[in-house]
């Protein structure tokens, strides 16, 4: 235990963005929550519950972007299948919420969710057992994505599938899952997915306080994951991960079994995506197979690319910005959004290979001398 605390305390010095990030994130979270709870609805500063939920959704996306960035920005593995891990985490949470409905469903069956009654199933499938326990469902939310990532990564990295091949494989993986989850026989609600949730741990999902709690929990978990990730990536493990990105074979020749590093990093990233998914579902109130669609997974990559890969803060900023833009755009001109997204893909890869953080770095480097002069004066 003392070793662990020592490990963290050493990390504090490494990421210079970490502390400001955590402070700002938690500060904004608390302010927004307070504005929702304590200000009257007609106040100018009042934050509606809708906004709170939206913010919570963005934070889930930010967490997801973090997961993508860890594997792509730091290790050079472009995963086009992170949507799968996100959705699996989401489904685990969805199954728990589904079991929580109990006999309040349309058909009033105490055990079976509505869609199973509709399909004329008599028994709960084995993989739904235990999902009424919160702790078990949460265990599954991280274990299933983790396990899938482990098996896939173990197979792929051991046989040295890299680069675009791996990207295509991950895309095929999420595509296969998409097809599978669309099937009614799979027992996950088929086309419609899981929805109509009532409550979580006994708290109604419709109430403001539950929504705010979920939002705060998301922000807290995002901070924790951010700090842990920062620490991991600045350890020697993180340095090895960077060598894998830049010169993998050299790294092998000095004795690192890079495949294992990649597998564990991939698993870690998948677990984060799973957590993000589990937090996402109670806030948006639905999980359906559409989350597996390859387009979703590839969109996550562009969040990271916009923000700046290889920097955790960039991934978070990218996810927040792109999703905010998406919300605004789809409200004003729904058709233009796909044009904008497409253009973003092209322009960012062409002109902003390091994303906004790269621009920030350049600007800082450019203006630092003048700043220094000013301070002298």
């Amino acid at each position: 235990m003392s070793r662990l605390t020592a490990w963290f305390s050493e990390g504090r010095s490494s990421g210079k963005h970490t502390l400001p990030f955590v402070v700002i994130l938690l500060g904004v979270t608390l302010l927004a929550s307070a504005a929702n709870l304590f200000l009257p609805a007609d106040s100018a500063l009042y934050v509606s519950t809708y906004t709170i939920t939206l913010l919570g959704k963005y934070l889930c996306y930010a967490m997801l972007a973090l997961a993508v960035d860890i594997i792509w920005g730091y290790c050079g593995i472009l995963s086009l299948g992170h949507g799968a891990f996100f959705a699996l985490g989401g489904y685990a949470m969805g199954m728990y919420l589904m079991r929580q409905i109990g006999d309040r469903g349309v058909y009033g069956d105490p055990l079976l969710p509505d869609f199973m009654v509709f399909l004329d199933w008599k028994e709960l499938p084995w993989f739904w057992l235990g999902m009424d326990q919160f702790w078990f469902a949460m265990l599954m939310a991280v274990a299933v994505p983790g396990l899938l990532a482990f098996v896939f990564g173990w197979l792929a990295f051991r046989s040295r599938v890299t680069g675009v091949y791996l990207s295509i494989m991950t895309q095929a993986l999420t595509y296969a899952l998409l097809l599978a989850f669309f099937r009614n026989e799979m027992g996950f609600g088929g086309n419609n997915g899981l929805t109509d949730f009532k409550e979580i741990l006994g708290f109604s999902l419709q109430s403001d306080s539950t929504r705010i709690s979920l939002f705060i929990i998301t922000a807290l978990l995002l901070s924790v994951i951010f700090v842990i990730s920062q620490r991991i990536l600045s350890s020697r493990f993180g340095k090895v991960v960077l060598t894998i990105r830049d010169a993998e074979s050299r790294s092998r020749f000095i004795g690192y079994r890079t495949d294992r590093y990649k597998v564990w990093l991939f698993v870690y990233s998948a677990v984060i995506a799973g957590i993000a998914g589990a937090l996402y579902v109670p806030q948006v109130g639905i999980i359906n197979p559409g989350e597996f669609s390859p387009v979703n997974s590839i969109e996550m990559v562009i969040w990271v690319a916009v923000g700046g890969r290889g920097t955790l803060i960039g991934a978070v900023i990218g996810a927040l910005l792109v999703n905010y833009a998406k919300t605004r755009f789809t409200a004003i001109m729904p058709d233009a959004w796909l044009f904008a997204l497409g253009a973003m893909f092209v322009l960012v890869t062409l002109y902003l290979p390091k994303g906004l953080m790269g621009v920030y770095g350049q600007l800082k480097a450019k203006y630092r001398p003048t700043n220094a002069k000013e301070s002298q004066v």
Partner: protein
Amino acid sequence: MRQLIALCCCLFGLLSFPIQAAETSRVDALFTELAGAKLKHMELILEQLEEAKGEAILPLFRVLLGGDLYYIKANKNLVGKFDDQGKTLYKQVFNDTLVPNLAKRDVKKIRVNNKLRGYLRNAIARIQLTAKSPSVRESAVRELLSKLDASTVVILEDLYPNEPNKKVKEAMGLALAMHTASQTELAVSNRLVAIETLSTSLENDVRNALTKLTQDDNPAIIKAAQGALEQIAQRAKRFAFVDQLFFGLSLGSVLLLASIGLAITFGVMGVINMAHGEMIMLGAYTTYVVQLIMPNYIDYSIWVAIPAAFLVSGLMGVLIERLVIRHLHGRPLETLLATFGISLILQQLVRTIFSPLNRQVSTPSWMSGSWEINPVLSLTLNRLYILAFALLVFIALVIILKKTSLGLNVRAVSQNRNMAKAMGVKTNWVDAMTFGLGSGIAGIAGVALSQLTNVGPNLGQAYIIDSFMVVVFGGVGNLLGTLVAAFTLGIATKFLEPTTGAVLAAILVLVFIILFIQKRPKGLFPQKGRAAE
């Protein structure tokens, strides 16, 4: 009336004898007579008509048999009644043109009784069975299989010995055998021989007849019938296998068309083009537009659409290469993202210009229909043509790559880009041309796909992952590998489908490839040597 006969001549001129003037008037008279004839006279009139006009009288007989023959009270012209969306309308008997402005009270039905119906049925059979064209005769026999009765059998027995065409004779033999087998009063040995004959047929009617025979009183007949049924079932199974194989090959040909362009761009330039699916889509929309421009020449539209689609998609490909991909050289993952962005833009563009809804592309008449090999096996022509077309494109591409200077340059660049550059190959130009070629072929694939599925903005998305799987499975930069992989995957999918269902089959194939790639990361036919690393 004269007009009507003239039209008859035009329509059936090829089949019927030239009608002499004297005969024409006689037939006219007969028609008029028919209009008001009493039931007992009708048979005579019909016999005369049959004698006078032969095959040409068939439409009249059919209408009459159906009880839809009317005559106009005013001029005793014959018309056929038909229903069009609940409205009763009348048309000319012989050429299907509508006779306008006829109300119910203007016409009178020509009635028939059971005796006449029997006569008509036999007459129709007789006329068809003696028709000039063997194919008409054959289909007549096959039609008769389900409604054999004593009188038709008599006709068949009459015609059987003199039938010159082998296939028609065979069919007649089958019909007779069916009759013989079902006659319980005949000698068992004769019936057994007949069952033996039946066991070689795949006709549904024959199978029904045999199934009926398994309820026979005679155990020997039951056994023979069961044996025959089993034999038929086995043959049918074999043909079902061929059918499945055909569908597999068809899917394979589609995959081949969709992925071969990708194999070129990926193999030569190492560029993952996520917009490849949209190139296919553009090709399909080009077909749609070509058909819009020339709506009266649908049959020829394909020949315009193929080069047009090649040009449209090819130019788009060159444009993409010049504007985007060129600047991302050596950064495959970024190229992947940028081309994905392009694919989003192209999809949205098509949605804006055309509509988000699917568009229907019509199939030229020469491509529709099917090739019926036997009652259980018929191959749809459009799939057959696309299979041939895919192979043709493949061969053409191989020739381009092996025999032309562009091909030489392309191969040089794919094997060693820097060396090729050093040798004076304009790699920039080769890249643009390669990309154009790959995209153009995707456009051609779009033309082919438009004949099989609906054309919509998401058309390309449906094929992109499968195409990647094909390329990766076959081994990058290897056209033959792509061919083998496309057909392997196509056939595997179609053979899995009956047992697992379409979706699960797709999943299984994907999982198989994921595992396969992990065993052999370089695909079926890897490039060897230090160069490959």
